[in-house]
C-alpha cells in the first residue's frame, strides 16, 4: 500500500504542477470561445446561479437543464411556446400530429415527420425514438419512473431482463411509432414532452455526455460546455430547412454564465452588464427597491406552478389529531412567511397552485391566507391544541439551510411554540434533505418544509404527494403519510383522464383539493413567484415566460 500511496503523491504533485502551468496558459481560450457564435445573430448573456445538473438530455432533470435542453431536443410532442395556460398545451413536435390513442387508453400511435435532420446533419429515423427512451432509462434520468412505470416492457428493460423495450415498435419506412402502456396514464403525452424523450440518434454512446451533448432536433444546439462555468446555446444550422410549426427559430445565440452569487448576478443585469437573470434565482430583497426604481419596465414577478408547504405526519403525534392540524393552519401567518421569501410568494391554503387545472377559487377553511392572522384565530388555534390533548407535545420541524427554507422553519417553530406545542428545528444539508425526511424507518419526521414544482401540467402530478401508493419505508414521497380512501378512489378515476381532456374533470379536482384543505393534511405556505428580469437591450415584452420551462430563450430578442 505504501508504494501505491507514494506514487499517488508524486502523481498528484505532478498533476498539481502540470495542470497549474497548463491551465494558466490556456484559461483564456476556453472562456472566450463560448462567445464566438457560428451564425450572425446577436449573443445574449444569461446569468444562472445554479448550474444544470446535466446538459445531456438523457440525464438532466433540473429546471436549469430543461431550460436549455427543451430547445435542443424536441420529442414527438412538445409544449406550445406561449405564456400562461396556452403554454401548457401540447403540440405535435417531431410527430406529424398528436397521436391517436386507443379506446382503452393504452396504445399511442405516432407518425414521424418526413425530412428531419439532427443538428449534425444525420437524418432522423423512427427507430431513434425507442433508442432515446432506452438511453434515458439506462443513464438513469431523474424522472425515469414515468417511463419505466407505464411503458410496457420498460421495467424489464431497466432491470436488465430484456435488451429492448417490448412496448415500443416502429416502422422505418412509414415513420410509424407505436407505444403500448401497461395501464392508461392521463399525462403520458406530457411525459413524452420531456427533453429526455427528445430524440437523439441511435448509437449515441450509452454514457453521460454532459460536456459534449449529443445532437438533437430543435431550434438550438448546446455547445462549448465548461462544466459549472458556462455553456452556449447556439442556433442550429439544420433548423432552417425543417422548421416545425409552433416552434419558433429563435433570434439570438445564448451564452450562459454560471454566477452563483445572486447579488452579483442581479447587479450585473440591473446595470445592463448581462442580459437575463435566471428565473430559478432570487433577486435579493435588499436590491428589490433599486430594481423597482430603475428597472420597473424590465422586471416582473411571474407565478410558477409550484407549492410550498409543511407536511403534517398523520401517523404520529401530534398531527394524528385533525384538531392540531387545523390549529396549525389557523395560526400560520402566511403574510409573515411571504416576507421571509422577500415578498415573492402568493399566500395560499390549497395544494394545487394557481395555473394548475383544479385549483379551487373558494375561500380557505381555516382563516384567510391573505390577511395577518387575527387574534381570534390565534386564540382558536391555542384552544384547539388544548382540546386535542396534545399540548406540550414535542415536535421536530425539519428543513434545509437554503434561504428562506431555514427561516420558514424558524418561524414555524416559533408559531408551534406559541400555540402550545414544543418545537425544535432540525436543519439538514440540502444534498441530504430528501433522503433524510423520506426515511420512515430512521427519521419518520413529524413535520417539515417541502416544495413541489410541477413536472407537467396535470394535477395528478401534485397528488403523488398524497397518494397512499407513494408511501415507502426509505424513499417516502407522501410525507404526511396520508392514506385516505376518498383520495385513493378519486385518484384512480382522475389519473387516467388524458391531459387534453382535463377540462372535463376540473370541478372534480377542485372538490378533491378542497377536501384535502378541509382535512388539513398539509399546511400550505403559498405559491412561489419568480423574477423575470432582463437588461435594457432585451425586448422584455416579447420574452415568453413559459409555465413549464420558465424563460423561453427562443423568444429572446434585442429591441
Amino acid at each position, binding site marked *: 500500500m505504501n508504494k501505491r500511496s507514494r506514487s499517488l503523491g508524486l502523481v498528484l504533485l505532478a498533476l498539481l504542477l502540470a495542470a497549474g502551468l497548463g491551465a494558466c496558459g490556456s484559461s483564456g481560450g476556453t472562456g472566450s470561445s463560448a462567445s464566438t457564435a457560428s451564425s450572425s445573430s446577436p449573443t445574449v448573456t444569461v446569468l444562472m446561479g445554479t448550474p444544470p445538473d446535466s446538459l445531456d438530455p438523457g440525464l438532466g432533470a433540473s429546471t436549469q437543464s430543461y431550460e436549455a435542453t427543451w430547445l435542443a431536443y424536441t420529442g414527438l410532442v412538445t409544449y406550445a411556446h406561449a405564456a400562461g395556460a396556452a403554454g401548457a398545451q401540447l403540440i405535435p413536435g417531431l410527430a406529424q400530429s398528436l397521436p391517436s390513442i386507443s379506446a382503452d387508453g393504452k396504445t399511442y400511435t405516432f407518425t414521424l415527420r418526413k425530412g428531419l435532420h439532427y443538428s449534425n446533419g444525420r437524418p432522423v429515423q423512427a427507430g431513434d425514438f425507442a433508442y432515446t427512451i432506452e438511453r434515458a432509462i439506462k443513464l438513469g434520468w431523474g424522472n425515469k419512473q414515468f417511463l419505466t412505470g407505464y411503458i410496457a416492457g420498460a421495467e424489464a428493460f431497466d432491470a436488465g431482463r430484456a435488451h429492448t423495450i417490448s412496448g415500443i415498435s416502429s416502422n422505418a419506412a412509414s415513420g410509424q411509432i407505436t407505444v403500448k402502456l401497461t395501464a392508461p396514464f392521463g399525462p403520458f403525452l406530457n411525459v413524452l414532452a420531456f427533453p429526455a424523450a427528445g430524440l437523439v440518434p441511435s448509437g449515441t454512446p450509452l454514457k453521460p455526455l454532459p460536456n459534449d451533448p449529443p445532437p438533437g432536433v430543435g431550434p438550438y444546439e448546446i455547445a462549448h460546455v465548461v462544466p459549472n462555468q458556462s455553456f452556449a446555446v447556439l442556433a442550429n444550422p439544420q433548423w432552417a430547412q425543417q422548421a416545425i410549426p409552433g416552434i419558433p427559430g429563435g433570434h439570438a445565440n445564448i451564452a450562459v454564465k454560471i454566477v452563483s452569487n445572486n*447579488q452579483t448576478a442581479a447587479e450585473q443585469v440591473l446595470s445592463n452588464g448581462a442580459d437575463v437573470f435566471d428565473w430559478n434565482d432570487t433577486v*435579493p*430583497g*435588499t*436590491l*428589490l*427597491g433599486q430594481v423597482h426604481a430603475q428597472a420597473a419596465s424590465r422586471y416582473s414577478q411571474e407565478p410558477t406552478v409550484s407549492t410550498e408547504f409543511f407536511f403534517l405526519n398523520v401517523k404520529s403525534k401530534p398531527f394524528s389529531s385533525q384538531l392540531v392540524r387545523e390549529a396549525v393552519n389557523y395560526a400560520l*401567518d402566511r*403574510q*409573515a412567511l*411571504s*416576507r*421571509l*421569501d*422577500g*415578498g415573492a410568494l402568493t399566500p395560499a391554503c390549497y395544494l394545487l397552485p394557481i395555473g394548475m387545472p383544479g385549483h379551487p377559487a373558494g375561500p380557505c377553511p381555516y382563516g384567510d391566507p391573505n390577511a*395577518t392572522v387575527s387574534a381570534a384565530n390565534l386564540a382558536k388555534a391555542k384552544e384547539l391544541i388544548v382540546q386535542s390533548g396534545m399540548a406540550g407535545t414535542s415536535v421536530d420541524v425539519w428543513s434545509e*439551510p437554503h*434561504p*428562506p427554507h*431555514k*427561516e420558514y*422553519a*424558524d*418561524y414555524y*417553530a*416559533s*408559531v408551534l*411554540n406559541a400555540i402550545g406545542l414544543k418545537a*425544535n*428545528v*432540525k*436543519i*439538514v*444539508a440540502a444534498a*441530504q434533505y430528501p433522503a*433524510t425526511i423520506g426515511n420512515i424507518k430512521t427519521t419518520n419526521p413529524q413535520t417539515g418544509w417541502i416544495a413541489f414544482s410541477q413536472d407537467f401540467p396535470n394535477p395528478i402530478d401534485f397528488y403523488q404527494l398524497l397518494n397512499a401508493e407513494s408511501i415507502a419505508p426509505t424513499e417516502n414521497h407522501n410525507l404526511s403519510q396520508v392514506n385516505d380512501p376518498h383520495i385513493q378512489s378519486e385518484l384512480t378515476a382522475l389519473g387516467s383522464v388524458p391531459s387534453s381532456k382535463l377540462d372535463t374533470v376540473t370541478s372534480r379536482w377542485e372538490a378533491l383539493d378542497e377536501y384535502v384543505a378541509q382535512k388539513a393534511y398539509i399546511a400550505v405556505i403559498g405559491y412561489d413567484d419568480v423574477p423575470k428580469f432582463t437588461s435594457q437591450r432585451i425586448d422584455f415584452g416579447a420574452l415568453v415566460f413559459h409555465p413549464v420551462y420558465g424563460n423561453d430563450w427562443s423568444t429572446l430578442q434585442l429591441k
Partner: protein
Amino acid sequence: MSLPPPTPARSEPTVGTEPPLAAARAPAGPWRLVAARLRRSRPALVCGALVLAVVVACLLAPVYAREVAGTGPDENHITDTVRVGSRTLDVVSPTGVPIGPTWQRRFLLGADPNGRDVAVRLLYGGRNSLEIGALATLVTMLLAVLIGTLAGWFRGLTDGVLSRLLDVIWAFPPVLLGVALGVALAIGGLDLGVVKLSSGSLLLPAAIVGVVFVPYVARPLRGQVLALREREFVDAARVQGRGNVRILTGEILPNLTSTIVVFLPLMLANAILLEAALSYLGAGVQDPNPSWGTMLAEGIRLTPGAIHLVLAPGLMLVLVVFGVNVLGDGLRDALDPRAVAGGRG
C-alpha cells in the same frame, strides 16, 4: 491558508518561534513575578477586562432579553411594527428587509429577517461562541498535553505512532477537515460507543475545532518534553526510583505550565475564529442555536441591505478575539522576559 495558524511553529525545526522555556521548575515565586509583570502591561489588563465584560454581558443575556428588550432570542416578530421616534416602522418590510439599529430598548441593534432582536441574539450567540471556544481549547489542550508528553517521554514506537497521527491531522487544511467533519456529523451526530454527541449538541463543533488544533500545541510540547527528560532534576527523580507517572506529573508537567498558559489564549482565539469559519461554510453550530459565526454567515447572505447583521456579530467577534490575543501577548511577555519589546541587544 484561510485561517491564521497559531503564531508559534508551523514548520518543525523551529528557529525563531519556539515557545518560551522560561520558568524552569516554577513554584509560587516566579508566578508572582509573572503576575506582577502582567499587571504592569496596561494593554493586556484593559483587554482582559474587556473580554471579561463581554463574558459577563453574555451570561446576563436572559436578563437583557426579559428586562430591556422584552423578547426572547427565538421569538419572531415578522409582521410587528416598532415605534422609532415619532414614526411607526415595520420590523421586516414586505420585501423581507429587516429594520436596522433603532438605538432604543426594542431592537437596539435592529432585527434579522425573522424579526428577531439582534442584540438579544448577539448575547445568546456569544454564550455559544465562547462556550465552544472554551470547550474546544480544553479539548485541544488535554489531547495535546497527553500526546505531547507521551510521545516525548516514551519516544520510540509511541512517539512514532503519535507523531504520525499529528502529521495526518496537520496535513489536512484546518477548514477543509473541519468542514468535512462538520457536514458529515451534522446529520447523525457522533457515536463512538462511549461518547455520544447528538447533531444539535454544541459539543460537536467544539470537539471538531479542538481536534483540528491539537498538532499546533502537541508538537512544541513534545519537543519540550524531549529536552526536559535529559535534565538533571529528571535524572535525579529517576535515580530515586520514582515511576513514570510520578515523574511525569511531579516533574515534567509543572515545567510545561508556562508553555500551556501561553498557548491557552492563542488557542481560544483560534478556536473562536475556526468555529466562525465553519459556521460560515454551514458546518458549525446547528440551528436553532445561534453563534456569532452563524449570525455573521446569515448576515453576509443578506448584504448589502442589512449590513447591521454583518457588523454586529462581526465586530463582536473581532473585539473578543483581539482582546484574547492581546491578553495572550501580555502573558507571553510576562512569562518570557527575553521577548519583551525593546529587549534589543
